[in-house]
């Protein structure tokens, strides 16, 4: 046991100073739902905001498990530490109103990435996922002008962003000849995400298009399609900007990917909270939603986007 404790000691020590500093400066916390490159990009936005406002201590907190319970614990601890502001991507916003309201009563509360309109949050800064789903729907229509069969892949369907994206896709495809065969979930197990794709390719010889709803789904689709030698025969539409996804877009295997701008989530949330704490609320629209538009990355603009990403993710 001793050996392990010794091993862990440097990490504990390294984590300490940050906690101490928190007592001197006001802290703004950015609580995410799960660990992903997506949030690494948001972290760059937070870092940029922190450079502009060094009088604040800004941190990003990643839960060990993508569970509402774990997130609740994190928020309770932040409140106990008396942080000044929290921006959160709530895992289960519909049922977390209590927790969010408690946070809102003790600190500035922003929601990001997934909104909780029923709560007392000051503002939502993030994507409109239904709109993003519509964008993807349009891409699907463009890929299958004569109709066809499509399959959707996602981690779990109990996440709001998954449901909203699916809703947007369905809205757009209503009345077209594109049929959504099914949605396959993998409980965030990446290996299972890949096997789901492999199994679909094995079972449905006539499948025309695969959609990856979460960041890690699209690269697994890309790899499985390549592994099965079905590049071009099976079209792919994805979400987010995983490096492999972008590579797939560049080589033409992936038709296009709908990307959000997490850098802006991080940056605007932090800057917004600073403004809010300084009693500047003019930036909040009446809808209390600041929608960061999504972008379509396709072969024509992928090289430039890859460059940006490499820049953002470098030197972590």
């Amino acid at each position: 046991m001793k050996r392990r404790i010794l091993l862990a000691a440097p990490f504990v020590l390294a984590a300490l100073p940050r906690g101490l500093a928190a007592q001197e400066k006001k802290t703004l916390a950015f609580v995410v739902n799960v660990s992903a490159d997506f949030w690494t990009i948001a972290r760059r936005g937070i870092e940029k905001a922190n450079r502009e406002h060094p009088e604040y201590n800004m941190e990003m907190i990643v839960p060990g498990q993508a569970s509402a319970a774990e997130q609740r614990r994190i928020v309770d601890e932040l409140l106990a530490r008396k942080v000044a502001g929290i921006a959160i991507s709530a895992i289960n916003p519909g049922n977390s109103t209590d927790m969010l309201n408690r946070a809102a009563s003790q600190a500035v509360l922003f929601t990001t990435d997934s909104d909780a309109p029923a709560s007392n949050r000051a503002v939502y800064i993030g994507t409109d996922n239904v709109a993003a789903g519509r964008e993807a729907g349009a891409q699907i229509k463009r890929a299958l002008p004569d109709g066809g069969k499509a399959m959707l892949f996602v981690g779990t369907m109990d996440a709001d962003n998954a449901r909203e994206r699916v809703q947007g896709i369905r809205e757009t495809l209503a009345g077209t000849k594109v049929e959504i065969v099914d949605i396959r979930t993998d409980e965030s197990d990446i290996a299972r995400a890949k096997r789901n794709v492999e199994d679909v390719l094995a079972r449905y010889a006539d499948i025309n298009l695969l959609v990856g709803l979460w960041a890690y789904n699209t690269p697994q689709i890309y790899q499985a399609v390549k592994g099965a030698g079905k590049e071009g025969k099976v079209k792919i539409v994805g979400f987010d900007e995983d490096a492999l996804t972008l590579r797939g877009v560049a080589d033409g295997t992936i038709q296009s990917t709908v990307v959000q701008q997490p850098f802006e989530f991080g940056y605007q949330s932090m800057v917004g909270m600073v403004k809010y704490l300084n009693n500047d609320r003019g930036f909040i629209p009446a809808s209390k939603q600041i929608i960061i538009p999504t972008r379509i990355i396709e072969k024509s603009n992928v090289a430039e986007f890859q460059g940006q990403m490499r820049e953002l993710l470098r030197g972590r």
Partner: protein
Amino acid sequence: MSKKELGLALLLIVIGGITAALNPLFLSGVNVLNMANLIGLFGVFSIGQGIIIITGGIDLSVGSMFALLGVILVDLLVNYELPWPLAVLVVLAAGLVLGLLHGLLVTRLKLQPFVVTLCGLLIYRGIARYYTQDSTTGFGYAGDSLDTLTWLASGRSFGIIPNPFLILLVVALVMAVVLHRTVFGRYLYAVGRNEEEARHSGINTDAVIIGAYLLGGSLAGLSTVLLVFYTSSVSPSSFGNFYELYAIAAAVLGGCSLRGGEGSILGIVLGTVLLQILQNLVNILGIPSSLNFAVMGGVILLGVVADQQLGRRRERIQLHRSQATAAAE
């Protein structure tokens, strides 16, 4: 082949038969090869788990070891640009070191394996997440210098056979010889069944147990390489989550008793095959993905109950037979 393994094989055939009857695509070449690949991936570390279970121990930390060794592997290859044979060796050695650590804690400090590896589960994942600052690492921006290793770990040989499956065959063969033919294997079973007696026979039981954890650790290291190249990326908070349970399930299905001293390599491999078929049939039959775990749990329970009942019947029959011979004497 023991009766236990025969029963398991029968169960496999029945379930496979039903699935194939419902959807013939189950037996299509593509699907079978996909499954072979996954069986390879999960089989290697299930064997390691099985060996540890045979000594009466357990390793709950394998899933977290995958995350930790996985981020180390990616980091070495992508950021430090180490030559791949060296990086793979480092990962295998790291698995060995973790196994040694477990073994020493279990034997020298007499800690319970469950506790030791539970701590490992928490610690390794924590370190992996801290080390990567919780971000997913992958080969996304890496060049093509890893082609050989990519092929070795996730490619196909002879045109069609997935390499992980071939690797599993080799590992299973070697481990079967080690377990069922060598002195070490004999000691392993003896220690698992009755450590006290093994010590009374002059066996260095500590060394045997440490040996099992070493094997488990190095097989976990090997699995890490295969798994990382299957997904091409490692997200430290979810990579390998629950995989220790897949391994334990495969070992138990394959006839390992959690009390130790029982089980065979063939059984563990068959157990892995069954688990993978179960996951596959959910997709092939179009059963909602959300039922995946429920189907798996249900069939395992069924298998274990059936085995228990059949085992009891066998025992009763044997008892009667031995009583009959005793009475005849």
